[in-house]
């Protein structure tokens, strides 16, 4: 059964078409990798699915568990089981890692989820989720918090990006926990080796899906691209 269905989605910001006739389906417990260079609209798609402020579809439909969610706010979508790990997670003053991991799920064992992302409980549980954490530490804690929510759909926006990036093995470990818990994952990345751990993959270019299916095939297709940054004009596929 489909968890997420995106039907003919278009999103225009100002005069610029960011997403155009975009359709994608993610099944229950499926890990779907979304590959694309910078500027193809991957993060915009994530914000539209999550319902972030200022991101409303120009046309099309987003259906979650059979229900159209276009008009729901971010927390209403989250309460249905959608959540998201931002590419650059924000920091908070005065909030401990323990609190951060248990805001919504009071029963969650924060130590368990910290270990899942490779952080030692005794070193991190009482630290603040503030600027004292490195970029990599903050990303790991964000992933731990998403795991602790046990979502129906987790959107992971480039968990592998940044100076202090997570290794491929780190991400595989996290994805395996999502899979074990029956969560679906939309894994946004521009690294083909990360896409290989998914069940299915799609490649985005200029706001559209240009290739979809087996991750190996999509990764090969992606590797053969001519463009490094999507400028919406010069591309081998369009």
């Amino acid at each position, binding site marked *: 059964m489909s968890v997420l269905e995106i039907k003919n989605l278009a999103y225009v910001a100002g005069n610029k078409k960011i997403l155009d006739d975009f359709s994608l389906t993610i099944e229950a417990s499926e890990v779907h990798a979304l590959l694309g260079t910078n500027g193809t609209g991957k993060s915009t798609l994530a914000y539209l699915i999550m319902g972030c402020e200022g991101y409303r579809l120009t046309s099309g439909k987003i259906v979650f568990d059979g229900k159209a969610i276009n008009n729901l706010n971010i*927390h209403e979508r989250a309460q249905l089981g959608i*959540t998201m790990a931002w590419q650059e997670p924000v920091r908070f003053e005065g909030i401990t890692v323990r609190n951060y991991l248990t805001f919504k799920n009071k029963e969650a064992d924060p130590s368990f989820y910290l270990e899942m992302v490779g952080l030692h409980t005794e070193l991190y549980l009482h630290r603040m989720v503030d600027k004292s954490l490195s970029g990599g530490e903050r990303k790991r804690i964000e992933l731990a918090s998403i795991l602790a929510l046990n979502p129906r759909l987790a959107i992971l926006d480039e968990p592998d990006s940044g100076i202090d990036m997570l290794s491929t093995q780190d991400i595989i470990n996290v994805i395996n926990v999502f899979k074990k818990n029956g969560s679906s994952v939309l894994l946004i990345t521009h690294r083909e080796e990360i896409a290989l751990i998914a069940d299915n993959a799609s490649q985005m270019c200029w706001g559209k899906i240009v290739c979809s299916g087996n991750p190996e095939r999509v990764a090969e297709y992606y590797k053969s691209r001519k463009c490094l940054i999507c400028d919406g004009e010069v591309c081998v596929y369009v």
Partner: protein
Amino acid sequence: MSELEELMKAFGEAGGDKGILANEEIAHLVASGHKILSARDIEGLEFDAKETLTGISAKVTVKEGIEIKNPVHLCFGILHKKGTQRIKMDVKLEKDASAHFIAHCIFPNAEKIRHVMDAVVEIGENAEMKYSETHYHGLYGGIEVVPKAVVKVRKNGKYSTDFNLTHGRVGKLEIDYSVEAGENAVTELIARVFGHANDNIKIKEEILLQGENARGLIKTRVALEDEATAEITGITEGNAPGARGHVDCMEIVKDKAIAQAIPIVKVTNSLAKVTHEAAIGSVDKKQLETLMAHGLSPEEAVDIIVKGLLR
């Protein structure tokens, strides 16, 4: 119920540990209005407290080389709806001494109260003083609190304050602290205040880095809602080689509240450095969305962000 019992009841209700009075290893001074209700000094720490016409005058001395292990508790308050309390404090930590003072200022029924604190503090060479001050002003907002402190931190001394007024109304608050830091001295002034209704908050804190390699931090966190107003002035001067100072002010504003931050940084020695940062605005959108993506309602998310800021 005696006045002491009543004050300690209010103290307990404000989150304090009433057991401190019975503990003979803990020094304390408890005053209600113009009366001293209870006082205990311990070895190495002397209290010389007197009642005055308008309040209390106290001289506190921590003797040379003495480390006071348990925090010293100061409890000041007025239980009546109206009144004035003027506290005069003269605190001295002699060379190599150290102590942590916790001040509880309790005015649970304040409708027309004025509480004034005038403190002169001297931190001796290598001495260390930590001063935590928590206020509870009740729910009426009919109080004016004016704490003033002039502090001198001598060579290698350490002085830190942590002022908290985050529960109940503020009323009118006018803090005025000035610290002069000597060679290698370290000063940290932290204040956290949550203003509601028509509360009026003025905080002026100043660190003068006079000695070589002196260090100073002024950190202020204020949240405002309704029609509350705040004016936060953080002044740091670097007047000696190697002096380093930083002013950090963050204010979250909701509803019709008005916030102002005035960081003043001045350097008179080319080898000194003073920096500042100030952020005023509504709740950070990305913080809000992150918590909402965790399933929290907008109200729950704002509450968590504000509480975190004031923690």
